[in-house]
């Protein structure tokens, strides 16, 4: 129950395969339930985690078996923080075409970051050292 829940942190280094998407999703949802997120928020967290993991595995690490995906989950009363890092070449916001621009609406890809931002209360990405990208997403209970 959320009332007795204090704080919990989990760190994982996952393979660059799509199986890791499910593992990350399950781990995040387990903590999300402990924090007390309702089903709707759990669905949002699941969507954001899955999109971020797919980005890290497919676009960041490019399915390279030598590269890992770093997952950190930090649960505290009322908050879940999800950090996902890859070992890819990194990206800038300007590299990603606006998926809501009329000319991009019928493109097949490029909506992952949009969905992560839509479903979480905070979503930011920073370069990792020595290489890669770290995405940090926050979900809060009862956020407006």
């Amino acid at each position: 129950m959320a009332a007795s829940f204090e704080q919990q942190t989990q760190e994982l280094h996952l393979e660059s395969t799509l199986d890791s998407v499910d593992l990350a999703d399950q781990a995040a949802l387990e903590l999300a339930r402990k924090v007390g997120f309702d089903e709707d928020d759990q669905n949002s967290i699941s969507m954001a985690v899955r999109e971020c993991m797919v980005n890290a595995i497919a676009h960041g690490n490019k399915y390279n078996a030598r590269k890992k995906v770093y997952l950190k989950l930090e649960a505290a009363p009322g908050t879940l923080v999800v950090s996902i890092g890859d070992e890819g070449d990194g990206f800038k916001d300007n590299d990603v075409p606006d998926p809501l621009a009329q000319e991009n609406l019928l493109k097949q890809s490029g909506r992952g970051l949009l969905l992560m931002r839509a479903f979480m209360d905070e979503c930011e990405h920073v370069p990792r050292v020595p290489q890669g990208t770290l995405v940090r997403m926050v979900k809060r209970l009862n956020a407006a």
Partner: protein
Amino acid sequence: MSVTMSTRQVGDVTVIDAAGRITLGEGSSAFRDTIKDLVTKGDKKILLNLSEVTYIDSSGIGELVSGFTTTSNAGGKLKLLGLTKRVHDLLQITKLYTVFEVFDDEAAGLASFS
């Protein structure tokens, strides 16, 4: 569970009943293959029933768009039926609600092709 798809003919409209998850990998390729096969056969009026689809990720959304353009390029139409709240929200967020014709009621969806 990934997506399962079955087709049925109602007059000159092909209804695809999809169920499960349309996500990166097996789910999205199954969807793509089904649409491509129908269009190749000459089926140009397609009503995609998503009422039993529990989850779509951005790859799945990409496949919906791909199906839409494949059908449109062949001179046909792909329309959507029975969106769950989650899929409805996704189409709103991605602005694809402005692209697809969406119906809650199958009879209305079928009638829209005539």
